[in-house]
């Protein structure tokens, strides 16, 4: 079973919830925790363990073979992303614009653009007690997160049984990286905070889940600040609120040190228990 932890707004507590929930489940069972926020992965700051493996991850881009190219210009016509351009007697490839669709390569009449690997980042697998932690990290200068997220999910699918509990710490927002990270999830937890920014971005996240047809629920973090609008919105729209994590400066302090908090804050642990029993009661399991 795959649970994705997402949010429209950044900094609402996705990583806090993902890491603590994984560690809490791990007291009783095996858990896979994956950090799919490949642009700014943070879960690893809270997990220490033994490094199982590091894999370099590649995306495929075309490479121009000057000697056999007849400069017919087909490649440039076939690329919708302007990643292949003919300039005089040169074919230029712009890797950061390439979506690895293979059109230029496979439609080239002289096979002058074979696809080759280009490094885009790195996947680490760390074992920490009952937690298998998978972190992918996009190289600085690489602009597309989606292929690396896809490959990370693929790694997890091939490595762990279908029924294993998997928690995906997802990227923020509502665009392609989030879709990639949540589209295969069985259930999505949307983390928000009870403020106007929190509510505005929660609505966007809810619309995204409706568009994807995903079952989802809401966890309100920093409960007690702001106002009641998030709760009213959830009630009006029949959205389940799984837990309300009280606002606490102590939590922020522990988080800042890279510490898991659930064993130090009983009120936080109680909320994790509520989320756990909600997940265990899901019909998908």
């Amino acid at each position, binding site marked *: 079973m795959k649970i994705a932890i997402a949010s429209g707004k950044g*900094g609402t507590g996705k*990583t806090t919830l993902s890491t603590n929930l994984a560690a809490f489940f791990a007291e009783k069972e095996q858990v896979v925790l994956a950090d799919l926020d490949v642009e700014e992965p943070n879960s690893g700051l809270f997990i220490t363990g033994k490094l199982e493996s590091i894999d370099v991850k590649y995306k495929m881009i075309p490479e121009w073979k000057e000697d056999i190219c007849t400069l017919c210009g087909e490649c440039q016509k076939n690329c*919708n992303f302007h990643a292949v351009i003919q300039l005089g007697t040169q074919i230029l490839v712009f890797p950061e614009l390439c979506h690895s669709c293979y059109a230029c390569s496979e439609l080239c009449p002289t096979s002058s653009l074979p696809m080759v690997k280009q490094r885009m980042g790195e996947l680490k697998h760390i074992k920490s007690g009952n937690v298998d932690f998978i972190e992918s990290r996009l190289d600085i200068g690489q602009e597309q997160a989606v292929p690396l997220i896809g490959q990370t999910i693929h790694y997890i699918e091939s490595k762990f049984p279908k029924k294993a509990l998997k928690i995906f710490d997802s990227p923020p927002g509502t*665009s392609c990286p989030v879709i990639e990270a949540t589209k295969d999830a069985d259930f999505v937890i949307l983390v928000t905070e009870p403020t106007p920014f929190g509510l*505005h971005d929660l609505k966007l996240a809810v619309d995204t889940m409706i568009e994807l047809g995903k079952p989802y629920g809401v966890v309100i973090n920093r409960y007690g600040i*702001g106002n009641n609008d998030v709760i009213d919105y959830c009630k009006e729209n029949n959205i389940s609120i799984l837990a309300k994590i009280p606002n606490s400066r102590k939590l922020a*302090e522990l988080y800042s040190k890279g510490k898991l908090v659930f064993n130090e804050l009983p009120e936080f642990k109680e909320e994790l228990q509520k989320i756990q029993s909600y997940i265990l009661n899901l019909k998908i399991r």
Partner: protein
Amino acid sequence: MKEIVVISGKGGTGKTSITASIAILAGHDAVIADCDVDAADMHLLMKPIIKKTENFYSGVIANINEDKCTNCGICADICRFGAIPIINNQHTIMPLNCEGCGYCEKVCPVEAISMHEQNVGDWFISLSKVDNVLVHAKLGIGTENSGKLVAKVKNEAKSIAEKENKDYIIVDGSPGIGCPVVSSLSGANYAVLVTEPSLSGLHDLKRVYELVKKFNIKAGCIINKSDINLDMTNNILQFLKEESIKHIASLPYNENFTKAMTVGETIVEYDHSELRNLLVESWEKVKKEVE
């Protein structure tokens, strides 16, 4: 005219609250661009009156004409994005998976596939509550944030600033290190990095600064919630020193950030003591930095 971009790498550091405060302080001297188009929140504080709305089209998406389609499956075979599954015995495009590469259109033997422009969102030119121009946008759900809408918002802000002879463009940047933030940064004169003293705050600051360095943009840093972990604040100060990044200000952990937002105000409107003073000082320092 100087372009100042506020970014943070990590979300939730107070970037938008700080940018909106600067926007209020800059007043008529500035045009504001909200480039966090994926979760644009600035308008909640700036209370804009929308003067102009435009659709934004970017990229294309495939469509299958079922009357022509023979279900030969060639398109599905070459699609690298798994976007053409068979649903009810018919090859069907999954819009959320389609990258718009057009490969399927080119290989279809019966010309059943065509590509259509995709409306990925709307962008707006507005007047904020202090009468400065705010350019902002709303990205459609699940659409590609390729940075093109970000670039549109920024270029529009730039041309308005040029036309009206403004001194500053203030940009609320996107999170992360991918295309949207690359778009936010390109062409900027100065980057204000907003961080918080946590392991993740410092981690993300370092990553996003790597990117800023690639663009050769001068930078300064505001440490928000600086008293939450003094050791970590010192680590950040050390990093700023090593990289010659100007330390603009350390702001205390202060509930007025949330309280101001809750009543739809910026911090400099809501708070009349320490926080406001620190932000006023910060803006003066930034202005000096870009001179």
